[in-house]
């Protein structure tokens, strides 16, 4: 097996997605289990439901849109606080460092980042010197701290989300293309 050099990402399938938002809820749940004591039931939710992927409706249907963990990530390149970094090939936002400047939101060509309210220990965190809630750049971190892998992929009832390992998939497709050449060799 070749050494991993590219970031993985989750991609949605617009043909399968029914727009149920189970992915958004699962994402919110796993990211707030520790920090905000959110459990499996609605009663445990005391903070705004803030996902890191965005169910998007468009003319032909709907599908979740999330970060592609770009290899020359525009969000990482524009962040003046150094709050976005690459950890084990994935592009990750440090919520504590983020000052909500919106630069990353403008730089991302996919709309994969939105500024959303920041909560800790079950309470919304206020901005220093104001009663307004602190916001942070919410985007997919590929569930880096969650052992079962991306929660959205596991939660989807229609298998409309897929975790992509770009290098492994490219090699598989290469082999298929080579086999096809075998049948075309004599034109």
């Amino acid at each position: 097996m070749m050494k991993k050099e590219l970031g993985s990402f989750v991609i949605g399938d617009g043909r399968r997605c029914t727009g149920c938002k189970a992915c958004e809820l699962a994402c919110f749940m796993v990211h707030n289990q520790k920090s905000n004591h959110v459990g499996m039931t609605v009663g445990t939710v005391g903070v705004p439901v803030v996902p890191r992927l965005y169910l998007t409706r468009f003319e032909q249907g709907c599908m979740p849109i999330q970060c592609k963990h770009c290899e020359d990530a525009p969000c990482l390149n524009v962040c003046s606080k150094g709050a976005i970094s690459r950890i084990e090939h994935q592009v990750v936002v440090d919520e504590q460092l983020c000052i909500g400047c919106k630069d990353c939101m403008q730089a991302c060509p996919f709309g994969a980042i939105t500024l959303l309210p920041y909560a800790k220990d079950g309470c919304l965190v206020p901005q220093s010197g104001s009663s307004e809630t602190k916001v942070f750049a919410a985007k997919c971190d590929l569930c880096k701290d969650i052992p079962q892998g991306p929660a959205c992929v596991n939660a989807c009832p229609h298998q409309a989300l897929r975790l992509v390992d770009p290098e492994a998939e490219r090699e598989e497709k290469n082999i298929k293309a080579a086999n096809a050449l075998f049948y075309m060799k004599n034109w």
Partner: protein
Amino acid sequence: MNYFVKGNPDLCIGCRTCMIGCVVVHEGKHIFEIDPDSYTFHPKLHMVKTARLSVPVQCKHCENPACMAACGVNAIYQEDHRVLIHTETCIGCKACMDACPFGAIDMVTVAGVRQKDGSEKKVANKCDLCQGVAGGPACVRVCPTQALTLVTEEELEDLAKRKRMESARSTFCEVYHCDEFSYGGRE
């Protein structure tokens, strides 16, 4: 119609000369003189070896390229019978890599360019049919067994025409029980 290079698994011996030819023509002959550790080898075609065959796989320069449709920053375009990547615009999002059904695109580091956090910048890399190179695709020229061919629109259409004529002849001969070589008339 776009042109493309096609490998023949019956003739390919898996020597990887095509890959070396590709790198030399895109990077210059100095690669033979410098320290191999200071250089990253990025061929634009991939040698596939399975138990059954060996053949290089490269971009097919599709007429409706999936990579071009998937690109979020319009870095992929068609020009001069080929599909090209504008690497300065590319942000390395891997959408094209996921979209390509042949595994013809990979992500490679850009020498001397770093992202803001100091990590290597990676952009999409694929066959450009040796644009601007006299004598056409280097892989075709260097292959010691002539296992690679540049397929042009004229050749592809000639081929289809020839096959249509052959199938018309054989159908005709079958129906009229005539000799295959005297298909010219009905009498």
